[in-house]
């Protein structure tokens, strides 16, 4: 087994098997707990360590209580790589939906908008999973994705 695979197994073990912990997951990601953060940081390879250090430096403590918010640290359960929740959301609106009226109801700032796509920044300390659910309840909203900064792609 290569080092990379050993690492993945360890990471996957951390990510998948900590059933005694109160786990928070969304999409491909699992929120990391403090002890997992420490363990992971010791076992990353050089490059991932560097990414992880960068991500950790801006992490706040709220994420460690099971709530996903800006700067929460997560792990991608498929790639085994760490990521950081940015607090950005990408929305796809229904045709003719009025983003202005929508924003007055939520702690969101528009970063950019094109066609029916809106890139938003949530206020800090916002419970992003709860916000996402609320947004999905709206008839004007087709789809919502929470942003996680990670190395998703590989060259071919």
């Amino acid at each position, binding site marked *: 087994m290569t080092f990379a695979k050993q690492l993945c197994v360890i990471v996957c073990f951390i990510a*998948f098997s900590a059933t005694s912990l109160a786990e928070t997951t969304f999409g491909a990601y699992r929120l990391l707990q403090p002890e997992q953060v420490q363990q992971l940081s010791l076992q990353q390879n050089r*490059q991932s360590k560097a990414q992880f250090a960068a991500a950790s430096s801006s992490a706040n403590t709220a994420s460690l209580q099971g709530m996903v918010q800006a700067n929460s640290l997560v792990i991608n359960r498929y790639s085994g790589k760490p990521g950081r929740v940015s607090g950005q959301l990408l929305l796809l609106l229904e045709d003719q939906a009025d983003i202005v009226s929508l924003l007055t109801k939520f702690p969101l700032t528009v970063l950019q908008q094109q066609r029916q*796509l809106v890139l938003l920044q949530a206020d800090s300390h916002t419970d992003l999973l709860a916000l996402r659910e609320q947004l999905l309840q709206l008839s004007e909203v087709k789809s919502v994705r929470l942003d996680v900064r990670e190395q998703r792609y590989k060259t071919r």
Partner: protein
Amino acid sequence: MLMKKSVLALSLVLLAGCGGGSGNSEPPPPPPLALENLSHTTSQHWLPVTGSFANALSTTGSAQLLRIEQNGQVVQPVQGRYALNGALLEVDGLNYRLTPLSNQTVSFRYTLQQAGRQGSATLQLAAPLSDPLAPEQWHLVNTGQTSYALSDSFRDALIEMLINNPDEPMSRSQATSLVNQLFSEYRNQLRPGFDVDLLPLFAAGIFGQGSVSVVVDSGLQLTHEDLAANILAGRSLNLVDGSADPSPELDLSRPNAGDHGTSVAGIIAAEGWNGVGGRGVAPNSLLMAINLLADEYAGGLDDEWLVHGLDDSVISEGDNISAFNRSYGVTLPVMQGYSLLEEELHRFSVEDLRSGKGALNVKSAGNEFEFYGYEGDFCQQNGANELGLSCYNANMESSQQTPYYTIVAAMNPNGHKSSYSSAGANLVLTAPAGEDGDLLPAIVTVDLMSCQYGYSSEAAAAGFDDAIGDGAFAGFYPFDSGAHPDNPQCNYTSRFNGTSSAAPMVSGVAALLLEAEPSLTARELQHLLISTARRVHPEDPVIRLSLPNGSFEAHSGWVENAAGFAFNNHYGFGLVQAGAAFQRLQQGNWQLPAKQYSAWHGTALYSDGNPANLAVPDHSAAGVSMALAMPEQLVVETVQLKLTVRNPELLEFGRITEQGSTQTSAGNDLAVVLISPAGTRSVLLASRQALLLPALDEDWAIQDGYILKDSVFRSNAFYGEASAGNWTVEVYDLAADSFAVQDTEFDFDWIENNAELSRLDGAALRIVGHSKE
């Protein structure tokens, strides 16, 4: 040699005179026709010069060309074209067009006849202005060159390895014979003509001027000697530091890694005729780069926004972007969830940019035909490798399920798919990419400057030598070793391959064609490329799986649909042909009616919300089917099929059995076929593909119990057909095997044939096309 030719010419003249004689009163043969030698002292490699043999005559009057000789041999024309050594001569009357195909001086003799007199003289074409590596770039003009593969040093290295093999040492003569045979077999795979067909555009003076390719990749070394002239100044973006310079950080601890984006950029737009390196497909086009894949960068949604052109502070709608090159992807052993957000991001690039004409999203299909890694030896054990079925299907990746990516497969110099190139019904085109650059050529392109860094570097050599043996790298890959006279500064590589190499070929062709016709929309451009693609590997065989109650056609080879378009899951519509597309462009009539979308038309789950719950028989050629009525009449450009198939045994972690960690075979066994109203059959999933985990939803949350859940396949096989009528979706379970697996990233030890039958719950269809006009 010249002396011999003179004697031969004299003999021919004498023979001609004798043969016609009938008596002593015959007049003496006329004196030879006096001709001037002709020459062209300046030219550019691959660009024709023109002239007239009449310029060699001292008197006016009708004359004719009798023959062309080179190196003492008469060269026979084919439709007025003489394939000379080092040049192509095209003749119309006494006018000629001469295209230098080598970097050397070319000369030949021509013989004219005027008023019964014959004469010969020489035409010499001086060594053209060129790029020293261009003659080895088979992807541009394939002359059967080796492109630095099949080198003498590689032959020697192989012979020594066989002689010194501790397990089974060979004698030198045995080893030499074996290696020579191997080389002969591979040399036979170098087939001239399988290239991107550039010369008609170059001959017309089209080099991509004004077109801009955005290279979304690891970076781009802006100062590279063969790229610097084609960088759109100040417009690239380094996501790591926010600067306009995405040149990769040169990391002394990882010196043997090349910069992928720099090599990709070289394929698109390496500067032409500058006397260094090679040449891009569009050698006068411009490059922007965004280093989304930089090692030290973690990207987010704002980057997706940016790399699809939605951030107008980086790319404005007026920029003349011909293509975004995307030689990257996400590979997982699972059907990735279809995302409406992704669809909308992709749509913006191809519909809104370039003032509404759009830019192509050119995407590499994937390199997972044989394996990837997550799946361990799954595709050996399930028979995919042996049967010749793709381990991963190009439709498994969510970004490749939308209608807005032009997905490109990879091809070898013999016109056959590259060993690694992933298959799928969503492929659009094929382009050259090659293999590893030892036995079969890869692509010659730019590499990071210096012998300290990159694919061609001392460090790359040291790493290879550590694994294989001292001196092995220089033996296998002499061009990249730092000791090759054609690459003394290690600024180039002959080892770049993958569908990463194929995509930028299409991006380059897009840049050329948009210079030729700037009003083309991205969709019309893709249509031109589709309708002029070359059907390579015509004998690509059908793969049929035997089952207890019949058989199943898992790969159909080339299938001509009812609209006359031939499609193949290995090649899409075939090899991209720039020249043929240009010719079609010149003929006119390339405009397409406005794009239209049908609604999703579904049944069962996608109609009344109730799952159909159709049991799919295990290991059977019978399968189950659903009829899908499409009431809307469009001319099909692409088709999307959404469906849900479940099996309760398919769980993220499998289950523990006596054989260890066990996953069901339900994903492995699944095949899906879509049949159009005209009867065209498209295999969307062939079985034996690496569906090891349950389907993912739009956010990539795993859906336990589902092989496919609202999963979307794209098929291009129905291009040009009429959409209205009854479509049929067929779903099969095609295997009953249980087998051990090793080294899967998800720690499965055993694949167990499904005891529960898989169930089809519903299917829906959407057409993207245009009205019939």
